[in-house]
C-alpha cells in the first residue's frame, strides 16, 4: 500500500511538473553573440555597431571574417561579397576584363550570354536587396518613437540622426546599383515590415525619382564634405552619387539631366579634394591616405577580412610568371586579365608587336678575362663579370657599372693564380699589382691589351640619337642605368626614322646595328624605326656581345600591365597567360612594405574619387550641360599631367571630344567598376559601334542583343514573387 501511495505521489508530482515543463518551450538564445532586439538596443554603442554593419555590407560577406557566417545564401560566400559581385557585373562584361575560371557561369559575363538563372547575377541582386533590407531595418529602429521609448537623448540622439541619414544614403547607393544593373526591381522601404509578403515592382524611371528625392532629402542632414570619419559618407558622397545619377539620366529615364550633373560634380570639385600626386598610390595598401578619395569601401587584412573586394581583385590578377611578392600577397589566383582593347588605349600600335628590335642570335664563345672586384665580392669565378676578346687577339673589351670607390683586378681564369693590377695607376698592368679603383659612379668602358700589358678605362654616358628622336642627329636623349637589370634605357616618343647609341655626347664611341641582327657594332649602321610611337629603348653593353631592345611603351604611368609571358591576343579565355595582366591594385604600402596580411589585403576600394568627378564634369559639359569648357579641359589635363609626369601628354580644346572622354575614363578608371555603365551611356556596350575580343563569345567580338543593357531579374525571385515581371527578352 505504501508503494501505491508513493506511486500516486509520483503521478501527482508529474501532473504538477507538466505545466512547468511546457513553459520550458519558451527559450531564448543562449549564445552571448546572439541577442534579442531589446538586449541589443539597451546598449548605446549598438547604434554605431549597427551602422557599421550597413557599411560592412559593402565590404565583408558576413559576421565572421573572412567567411563562416554569411549574410546571403545560395552562393559561395566570397562570390557573394558586394564589391566582388559589382566588379563582375561592371568589369567582366566589358573590354577591360576577362575571367579565366570555370566557376559556374562566370564566363557568360564576358561572352554576353547570361540568363535569368545565373547564380552570380542572383548574388548581386540579393546583395543589393540585403543592403536595402538592413538599411530599412536601421531606419525602422531609429524612428523618434523608438528612440523616445528607449529614452535615447542628447549627443547620442544627434549622432543617430546622422547615422540615419547615412543609412538612407547607403540604401540610395544600392538602389542606384539596382536601377543601373536591373532596371525594374521590387521596391521596399522602411514602411514594409520584415515578413512574408510580395513587394511591388517599381519601374526604372520611378526608382530614379525615388533615389534622387532621397538624396536631395538627406543632403542637408549629412556631415559636410571631408568632415566625417574616414570610411563614412558625407555631403560629397551624396553629390557624387547625384552627379552619377544625372549623368546617366537619359539611360535611366529617357530625359537628359546634364546641367544637374555639372552642378553636382562642381560641388564636389569645389569641396577641397586634391588629386593624389602619384596615380599608383590610389591603389596601394595605404590608400586611405589619399585625399582624392571621396567615398571608399574599406578593407583590412586584420579587421575587415573577406574573399571579395580588393583581396579578390589583387589575387585574381596575379598568375603566370608574375611574382606574388611584388603584389604583397601569398600567391596568385590567376583569373582576371585584360583585352588588347584596353592595352591599345595606352599603346595604339601594340598589335604590331611590342618588341620592334631583332632578337640576337645565340652568342658566341669568346676568350675572356675575369674582372673580380669589390663590386662583386672579389669572386674570380663569376663568369658574368668578364671582358671578352672578340677577335681572340689578346685584346679584351667590356663595360661595367661601378659605384664610387669600387676596386677591381683582372685574372686570367676563374682563380687568383694569374692576376693583374696596376701599381702606381700608370695604365700598365702589373702581375699581382695593386687594385685598380674608380672615383665616380658610372658605366665604364674597359679595354685590356694583355700581350702589351696595358689597359684603358673610360667613363661613358650613353644617349639615344637619330632623326627618329626629338633632338634629331644633334641632341641625344640621355639613357639611365638600372643596376638590377644592368641595362641602360630611355622612354622616348619616336617618329619614323632611325636611331643610334652614342657615348659622352660625341661620336668617339657609338653603336649601330649592321645587318640588323640585334648585335651592336661600333660605328654600325643606323637602326630603323618603322612606326611613330612611344618606345622604351634599352642598351645592354656586354658581356660579351652588346645588344639592345626597342619596345613599344607608354609615357602614361597609368598603363600598369604585366606582359612578360602573357599573350596580348586571347585564344582561350580560360588560360590566364592569354591577355595582358593588370598590375594596378597591390597590397603594398607606398614605402614598399607589405600590407598587414598576405591573404587579406589592406587596400581600400575607391568607389568615388575626384578624378572620376573631373571626367564626369568634362563629359557633362561636352554633352551640353553648361559649365565651363576651359575648366573641363583643365580638369582633364590635370589627370594627363599626373599620368605623364609633365604636360607632354596634355590635350588641346579641340581634342576634348566625347570619344576621348570615354577612352580617358578607361585609362584613368579601368578596373574601378565604372566601365559597363560608361559603355552603355556611350551606346557601345551591346551595339556594333565597338567590339572587343570575345564580346558576344567570338574572338574578334560582335554586336550583342540590346536587352543585355540591363540584367535579368533572377528567376528565383520571379518564382518567389508573383508581382514581378521579367525584364524584356530574358
Amino acid at each position, binding site marked *: 500500500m505504501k508503494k501505491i501511495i508513493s506511486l500516486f505521489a509520483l503521478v501527482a508530482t508529474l501532473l504538477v511538473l507538466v505545466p512547468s515543463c*511546457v513553459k520550458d518551450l519558451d527559450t531564448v538564445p543562449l549564445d552571448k553573440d546572439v541577442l534579442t532586439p531589446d538586449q541589443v538596443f539597451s546598449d548605446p554603442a549598438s547604434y554605431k555597431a549597427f551602422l557599421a*554593419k550597413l557599411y560592412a555590407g559593402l565590404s565583408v560577406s558576413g*559576421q565572421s571574417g573572412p567567411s563562416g557566417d554569411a549574410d546571403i545564401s545560395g552562393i559561395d560566400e566570397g562570390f557573394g561579397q558586394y564589391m566582388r559581385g559589382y566588379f563582375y557585373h561592371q568589369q567582366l562584361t566589358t573590354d577591360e576584363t576577362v575571367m579565366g575560371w570555370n566557376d559556374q557561369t562566370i564566363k557568360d559575363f564576358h561572352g554576353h550570354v547570361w540568363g535569368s538563372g545565373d547564380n552570380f547575377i542572383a548574388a548581386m541582386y540579393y546583395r543589393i536587396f540585403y543592403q536595402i533590407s538592413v538599411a530599412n531595418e536601421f531606419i525602422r529602429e531609429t524612428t523618434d518613437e523608438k528612440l523616445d521609448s528607449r529614452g535615447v537623448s542628447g549627443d547620442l540622439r544627434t549622432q543617430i540622426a546622422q547615422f540615419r541619414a547615412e543609412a538612407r544614403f547607403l540604401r540610395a547607393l544600392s538602389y542606384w546599383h539596382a536601377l543601373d544593373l536591373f532596371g525594374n526591381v521590387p521596391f521596399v522601404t522602411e514602411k514594409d515590415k520584415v515578413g512574408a509578403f510580395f513587394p511591388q515592382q517599381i519601374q526604372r524611371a520611378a526608382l530614379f525619382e525615388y533615389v534622387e528625392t532621397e538624396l536631395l532629402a538627406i543632403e542637408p542632414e549629412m556631415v559636410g564634405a571631408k568632415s566625417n570619419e574616414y570610411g563614412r559618407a558625407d555631403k560629397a558622397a551624396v553629390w557624387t552619387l547625384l552627379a552619377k545619377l544625372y549623368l546617366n539620366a537619359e539611360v535611366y529615364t529617357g530625359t537628359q539631366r546634364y546641367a544637374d550633373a555639372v552642378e553636382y560634380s562642381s560641388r564636389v570639385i569645389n569641396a577641397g579634394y586634391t588629386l593624389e600626386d602619384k596615380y599608383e598610390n590610389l591603389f596601394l595598401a595605404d590608400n586611405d591616405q589619399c585625399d582624392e578619395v571621396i567615398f571608399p569601401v574599406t578593407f583590412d587584412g586584420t*579587421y575587415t577580412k573577406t574573399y571579395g573586394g580588393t583581396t579578390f581583385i589583387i589575387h585574381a590578377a596575379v598568375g603566370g610568371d608574375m611574382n606574388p611578392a611584388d603584389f604583397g600577397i601569398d600567391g596568385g589566383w590567376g583569373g582576371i586579365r585584360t583585352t588588347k582593347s584596353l592595352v591599345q588605349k595606352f599603346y595604339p600600335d601594340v598589335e604590331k608587336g611590342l618588341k620592334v628590335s631583332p632578337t640576337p642570335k645565340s652568342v658566341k664563345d669568346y676568350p675572356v678575362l675575369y674582372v673580380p672586384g669589390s663590386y662583386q665580392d672579389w669572386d674570380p669565378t663569376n663568369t658574368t663579370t668578364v671582358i671578352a676578346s672578340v677577335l681572340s687577339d689578346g685584346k679584351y673589351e667590356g663595360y661595367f657599372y661601378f659605384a664610387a670607390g669600387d676596386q677591381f683586378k683582372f685574372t686570367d681564369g676563374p682563380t687568383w693564380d694569374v692576376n693583374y693590377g696596376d701599381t702606381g695607376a700608370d695604365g700598365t698592368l702589373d702581375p699581382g699589382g695593386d687594385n685598380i679603383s674608380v672615383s665616380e659612379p658610372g658605366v665604364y668602358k674597359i679595354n685590356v691589351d694583355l700581350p702589351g700589358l696595358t689597359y684603358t678605362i673610360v667613363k661613358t654616358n650613353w644617349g639615344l640619337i637619330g632623326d627618329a628622336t626629338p633632338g634629331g642627329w644633334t641632341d641625344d636623349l640621355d639613357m639611365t642605368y638600372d643596376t638590377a637589370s644592368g641595362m641602360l634605357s630611355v622612354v622616348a616618343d619616336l617618329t619614323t626614322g632611325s636611331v643610334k647609341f652614342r657615348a659622352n655626347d660625341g661620336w668617339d664611341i657609338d653603336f649601330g646595328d649592321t645587318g640588323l641582327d640585334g648585335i651592336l657594332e661600333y660605328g654600325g649602321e643606323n637602326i630603323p624605326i618603322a612606326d611613330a610611337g612611344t618606345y622604351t629603348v634599352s642598351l645592354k653593353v656586354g658581356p660579351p656581345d652588346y645588344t639592345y631592345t626597342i619596345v613599344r611603351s607608354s609615357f602614361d604611368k597609368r598603363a600598369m600591365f604585366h606582359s612578360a609571358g602573357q599573350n596580348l591576343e586571347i585564344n582561350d579565355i580560360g588560360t590566364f597567360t592569354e591577355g595582358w595582366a593588370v598590375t594596378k591594385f597591390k597590397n603594398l604600402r607606398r614605402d614598399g612594405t607589405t600590407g598587414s596580411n598576405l591573404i587579406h589585403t589592406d587596400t581600400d576600394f575607391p568607389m568615388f574619387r575626384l578624378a572620376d568627378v573631373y571626367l564626369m564634369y568634362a563629359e557633362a559639359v561636352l554633352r551640353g550641360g553648361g559649365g565651363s569648357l576651359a575648366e573641363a579641359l583643365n580638369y582633364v589635363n590635370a589627370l594627363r599631367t599626373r599620368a605623364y609626369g609633365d604636360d607632354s601628354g596634355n590635350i588641346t580644346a579641340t581634342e576634348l571630344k566625347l570619344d576621348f572622354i570615354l577612352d580617358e575614363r578607361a585609362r584613368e578608371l579601368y578596373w574601378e567598376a565604372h566601365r559597363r555603365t560608361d559603355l552603355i551611356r556611350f551606346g557601345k556596350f551591346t551595339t556594333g559601334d565597338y567590339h572587343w575580343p570575345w564580346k558576344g563569345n567570338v574572338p574578334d567580338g560582335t554586336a550583342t542583343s540590346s536587352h543585355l543593357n540591363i540584367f535579368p531579374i533572377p528567376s528565383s525571385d520571379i518564382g518567389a514573387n508573383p508581382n514581378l515581371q521579367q525584364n524584356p527578352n530574358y
Partner: protein
Amino acid sequence: MRMLLVAMMVAFGLQMHAQNVSLTGKVTDASDGFSMPGVTIAVKNSTMGTTTDFDGNYTLGVPAGATVVFSFVGYETQEFVVQKQQTLNVALKAAVTYLNEFVVIGYGQVRKGDATGSVTSVSVKDFNQGVITNPMDLISGKTAGVNITSNSGAPGSGSTIRIRGGSSMTASNDPLFVIDGVPVDNRGIAGTRNPLSTINPNDIETFTVLKDASATAIYGSRASNGVIIITTKKGSNKDGKAIKLDYSGAFSLFTIPKKREVLTGDEFRAMLTEKFGDKPNVLALLGNENTNWQDQIFRQAFGMDHNIAISGQVSKLPYRVSLGYADFDGVLKTDNMKRVSTGIILNPSLFDDHLKINLSAKGTFNMQRFGNEGAIGSAIQMDPTQPVYDEGNIYGGYWTRLQLNGSPVTQSTKNPLALIEQREDKSKVNRFLGNAQFDYKFHFLPELKANLNLGMDRTATYGDIFVPGNASFNFDALDGGGTIGVYEEKKSNELLDFTLTYAKELSTIQSRFDVMGGYSWQHFYRESSSSSTNDTTSPFFVNKIASPLSDFATESYLVSFFGRFNYYFKDRYILTFTLRNDGSSRFSKETRWGLFPSAALAWRIMDEAWMKQFDNLSELKLRVGYGVTGQEDIGVNDYPYMPVYVYGQNTASYQFGNEFYQTYRPGGYDANIKWEETSTINLAVDYGFFRDRIYGSLEFYTRKTKDLINFIPIPAGTNLSNYLVTNVGNLTNTGVEFSINAKPVIKKDMQWEIGFNATFNNNEITKLTAIDDPAYLGVFTGGISGGVGSTIQIFSVGYPSYSFFVFEQVYDQDGKPIEGLYVDRNKDGKITDDDRYHYKKPAPDFTLGFYSKFDYKDWTFSFNGRANFGNYVYDNFNSNNATYERLYRPEGPYLSNVGSDVNEAGFYDPQYTSDYYIKDGSFLKLDNVTVGYSFNDILGKKTNLALSATVNNVFTISKYNGIDPEIFSGIDNLMYPRTRAFVLGLNFSF
C-alpha cells in the same frame, strides 16, 4: 556435498542407461495432420539426436529411460520419456509462443502476431559478421526499405541511412535513433566521424526498424524518416547462473580494393611535352621522378577489438558488465581510432515482479587521430614527376613547389605526405549514456502498468589540431604559419518519459484491448568553443595571430503527450490508433504544437476457419495503416522564428576613422515556421508457407510530405536575408518492399537459411515554390569540385530530389564525345543554359539484399550482400581532373596530374555539366563472407570457443570504373576508400 551427490547420480545414470532402445515414428502437424520434415529430435543431456526426413519419418536409438525432445521452430516442443522400443508418432502444435514473441515498438512492445505497422527487427544472431566500428553495418542489407550506405572506409565513419527514401529536403532525412528508450540527437558529435561510433556494436542486442507511420507516429514530430530502436544487451537470469563470461576478439587487416587511375611520371612527362612542347617555362616545371602519390598516403592497416562481458545473477539481481577495447588504424596514414567502452546493466525485479527496474550505464571513451583526408585529393592531383622529399628544405624536407621568393606556391597542390604527416588532428570524446526504467504493475490492478524512463546522454569532446609553422600548406611568411587549435564541445540530452498502460481481456465479446497514455519531456543542450593561433613555437614565428574565439551554446526542448489504443477482436481483427501532441521550442507559441495521429488495421486471415483448406499456407496477414508524422530537425538554428541580432567577429569589422567597429547584424527569421508533415499510407501482406519455412512480407506505401522545411529564396527585400528556412514545397515517395526468407534444410547437423529482400522506391518533388511558375527551374544543389559554387544537381518539381541537371553530350562516329558540343534540346539554334535537362539521380530505383547461412555440425558458413539498380554517379574525379587544361595551372604556376580518362574523353577544357560524366552506378556487392568453427565444451561443460574468418567488402560487380559505385550523394569525388577487411574472430564463453 550436494554437488558430489548429483555427480554420482549422473555417473550411475549413465551406467544404468547404457542399454539402447530403438525409436521410430512420424511427426505431423497437429493442425492439419501433414507430415513435418526437418523436425529436430534430441536426447536430453546428450549429443544424440536426429531429424525427420522429407516424409516426417525418423529412426533414433536412445538409451532406455532417456527423455526425447521433439522441437521445430515456431512449434511447441514436446518431450517423451522412452523406456522401451516403440513407435512414437508425434503431432506438433504450432507454438503460441511464436506469436507471443515480442518486438519492441515505441513506448512498449507488441506480440509479433499483433503488430499492425511495418516493424522489422534484427537481433544479434542475424547480425552481419565481422563488423567492426560502425553499428549500422550490423544490419546493412538485412531489411527491405532500409538503405544503409557507409560513408567511407575511415575507422569510426558513419552511414547514411534512408528508410523508404528521404521524405525531407533541407531538413534531415536521417531516421530517429532511440537507444534503450532514449531518443538521441543525430546532429553529430564534434571529434567523431559518426555519433554511433561511440556505441560498442558488441553491446547491441537488437535493431528494430519502424517504417510506416502507424508504427512511427507515436514519435510524432521526429518520425517522418523512420525510427530505429536499438536495445542493448541486458542482464540475464535465464539459466540462473551466477556468472557467465563471454569474450570476443577480432583481429583485422584492412586493404584498399582499388585506386584511382592517374598518369605515371613517365606518362605525365610525355603528355606535357606533347601538349606544351613549345613552352619552355612550362616544361621547366617538370621533375624526373616517378612517384605514385597514392602509394605514399595509403597503407595496409591493422585493427583489433576485444570485448568481455560478464553476466549472470547475484541473489536475484541479474546483471551484465561489459568492457570493450578497440584500436583501429585507418588505411590513410596516421588515421587511428581507439575506443574503450564500459557498460553496466542491472535488472532487479521487486515485489513479486511487480516492479521491474532496468538500470543501465554506458561509458565510452573514444580517442581518435584523424588522418588528413585532404591528402586523398592531393595525391591524385600531385605532379608525379616530383620526389616525395627534398632533404633539407625548410618545409620539413617534403618536396614543395616554390615561388621566386622561396615561399610555397599557394595554389599548387600540396605534398600529400606532408599534409598527412604535418597535421596532428586529435580528439577525445567521452560519452555517457544512462537510463533508469521503472516498470510497475499495480498490485491492486495488475492490468495497469506504469513506466517511468529517465534517460541521459552526455558527451564531452576535446580536440586539438597542430600544424607546425614550417608546413608548406599552412605557411605565412609575414607572421609565421602553422596552427595550434583547440576545440571543445559538450552535449547533453535529458529525457523523462512516463506512461500508463492498461490492458484488459473482454472474453464475453471475444475482445481484448490495451490503452497507453504518456508524457515525455526532452531537453537538448549543446555548447562548443574553438580557438586557434599560428604556431607560436615555430622558429618561423613572428607575430601571434589568434583567430577569434568562437563559443556557442544552444538548446531546445520537446514536450509531448501521446497515447495508443489497441483493440483485438477474435484475435483476428486488430485495430491500432495512436496520437501524439508535440510541442517544440524551435517554433513560435502559435505554431509550436503539432498533432500526429495514426490508425492501422490488421486482419489475421490465416486464423479464419475457411483458411484451413490451404494446407501449405502457414501465415497470412493483411495490414493497412495511415498516419501523419512530422519533422522538426531544421538544422543548426534552434530559434528560426525569432528576430535576433548577431554580433560580428572582430575580423568582420568596419573602419570608421582609425577605429574598427564590430557590427550588429539583424538576422532573417520566419515567425510562422512550423513542422513539415508527412502522411503515409501503408498496405502490407505478411505470408508464410510450409509451417513458416518460407515466410516474408510484401508492402506498398506512399508518403506525402507537405510544408517541407526548406531553405529557399524568399522574395527579395522582404526579410533580412535572401534565403530562409521556411515551409514551402511538397514531396512524394512511393514504393514497394518485398522480403522472403527460407530454410531449405533443417536437419540436426545441417541447417541452411537464406533470405532475400527487394525494395523499389520512387521519389518526386511535387511543389517547390509559393507560386507555381512553370519557368522556375528549381533549386540548384550538389556542389562539385572544379569551379567554386558549381553544382550538378537540382530540386525541380516533377523530378526526383537531387536529379542531375546536365547538357546532353554529342558523340562522334567512334563514340568519342565532342568537346563543347551538346544537343540543342530546346531547338532555339543556340546552346545556352536552357538546353540542360534532368537526367537520372543518385538514389537507386531498386535495392536488393540477400544472405545465406549454412551450418554443418560445428561449422558455419555465411555470406550476405546487396545490389542497387538505377543509381547514377557523377564522375567528378574525371570531370575535374581528366582534361588537358588541368596539366599546367598558370595560377601557380604548377603542374597537376590528370586522370587516365583524359585519353578516353580527350577534353581540353573541363566539361563539368556534360552528361558524359553521369555514369550508371548499379552494383552487386558481396559484403561479407564468414567461415566459423566452434569447439564445444572445450574447457568443461558449457564452455565454448568459436573461431571465425571473415572477409568484408569481398567484391563489387559494376560497370562503373571508379573506385566504388556506391556513393550516396551521387557525386564521386575521392572519398576515403571503403576498405576490404580480413577479420579473424574469436569468441569464448563459459
